[in-house]
């Protein structure tokens, strides 16, 4: 069973629908026992870092996620879920879970404009991934596959070893990060058509070593 962590952060039904569509069982839950029992965990979300962290702490999910990570269970972060596993987010000046070292930074509008006139915030739409390191969940990735992004902030891991893939939007930023049993995407695999569903499917069978 896959537990999709529910912390009042937006469109969780779309992740559940996608996982069901590819033939895996899942539950959307904020019950710590259910999360403890689950074989894998998806940590999704849209919204703002501040209110997300607030809900996570209020529901006691911070401990549950950290415990799941130390127990070696495969964990997939998506969008805000990916940002929350970092140490700190510039969004709402938020202290996050610190599973991956580094900060979550805002796209600096002026900087981005300088490098590519006319770029908008949020970074909304389809973009590519440049692999920096191979990873099982990205094993089907083709060069021209694109993924759906919608975000104004991005993770910046301290350790280059934690960088799996990057995406270009005025600057190159980390769009896939992870190590050990955690992997996290800034884009939405559940909204990225068949290349996205392939990533979800790979996650559902991934055995981290």
């Amino acid at each position, binding site marked *: 069973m896959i537990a999709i962590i529910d912390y009042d952060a937006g469109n969780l039904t779309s992740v559940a629908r996608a996982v069901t*569509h590819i033939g895996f069982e899942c539950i959307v839950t904020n019950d710590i026992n259910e999360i403890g029992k689950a074989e894998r965990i998806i940590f999704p979300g849209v919204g703002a870092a501040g209110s997300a962290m607030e809900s996570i702490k209020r529901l006691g999910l911070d401990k549950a996620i950290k415990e799941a990570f130390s127990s070696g269970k495969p964990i997939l972060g998506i969008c805000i879920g990916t940002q929350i596993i970092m140490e700190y987010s510039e969004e709402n000046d938020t202290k996050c879970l610190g599973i991956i070292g580094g900060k979550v930074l805002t796209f600096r509008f002026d900087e981005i404009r300088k490098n590519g006139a006319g770029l908008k915030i949020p970074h909304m739409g389809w973009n590519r991934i440049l692999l920096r390191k191979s990873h099982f969940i990205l094993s089907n990735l083709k060069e021209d596959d694109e993924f759906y992004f919608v975000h104004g902030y991005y993770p910046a891991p301290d350790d280059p070893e934690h960088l799996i893939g990057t995406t270009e939007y005025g600057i190159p930023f980390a769009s896939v990060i992870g190590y050990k049993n955690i992997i996290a995407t800034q884009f939405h695999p559940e909204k990225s058509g068949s290349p996205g569903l392939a990533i979800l499917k790979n996650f559902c069978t991934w055995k981290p070593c």
Partner: protein
Amino acid sequence: MLSKRIIPCLDVRDGKTTKGIKFKDNVDIGDPVEMARFYYEAGADEIVFYDITASSDKRDIMIDVVRRVAETIFIPFSVGGGIRTIEDMRKVLLAGAEKVSVNSAAVKNPEIISKGAEAFGNQCIVLGMDVKHVGKSEKIPSGYEIVINGGRTFMGIDALKWAIDAEKLGAGEICLNSIDADGTCEGYELNLTSLISENVGIPVIASGGAGKPEHLYDVLTRGKADAALIASMVHYGTYSISGIKSYLDKNGVKVRKSW
């Protein structure tokens, strides 16, 4: 680099798709869930649904359509038309849409943008704008005025000012529809589109007037649009999404080519 998005737009009335020409003489052309699946498989980057159901007691049909679409396609889609309250937004988002679009309701009550953004995040809130060219005046300095009721009611609001205000209120995107160009198939309103797109920091979807791939090229380059809405040119099979995309790609516009 971010791709320019090609977005088919489906008008839905009483649970069936229609395509209006200048908002009149709508004819039924199919089942919205099947059309959504067709466009998903054909390479659409996103899908927009407009609920043009007139009577409010039939609104729940649309929620059911949204739920079935969400189970069928795995790309983002938005729903507009008849969204008047935060509760309306919540229903549509919970049924599985990524975004909701507000138009007349936001003109009458701009707070719905800020309240919606606060409740669901800016990225969920699309401002739909229906705009008519009226010529520059003291009251309408840009020469473009906001209209509602399918173009029948002039609101005395400058379109450029409204776009900038809506961004400040928390809109995450603008879907900009030119009433003058809508249904003509003679091309998007390029001046209007570039004017709005260059003066806001959020993405702008151009709408109204698409008749051939060259029109999309124009609006995505000279018109500075981030995305282009299409309807008749694909609904009646005149063009395919992949055909449009390969035309754009050959002409140097970055589009998503693999799906």
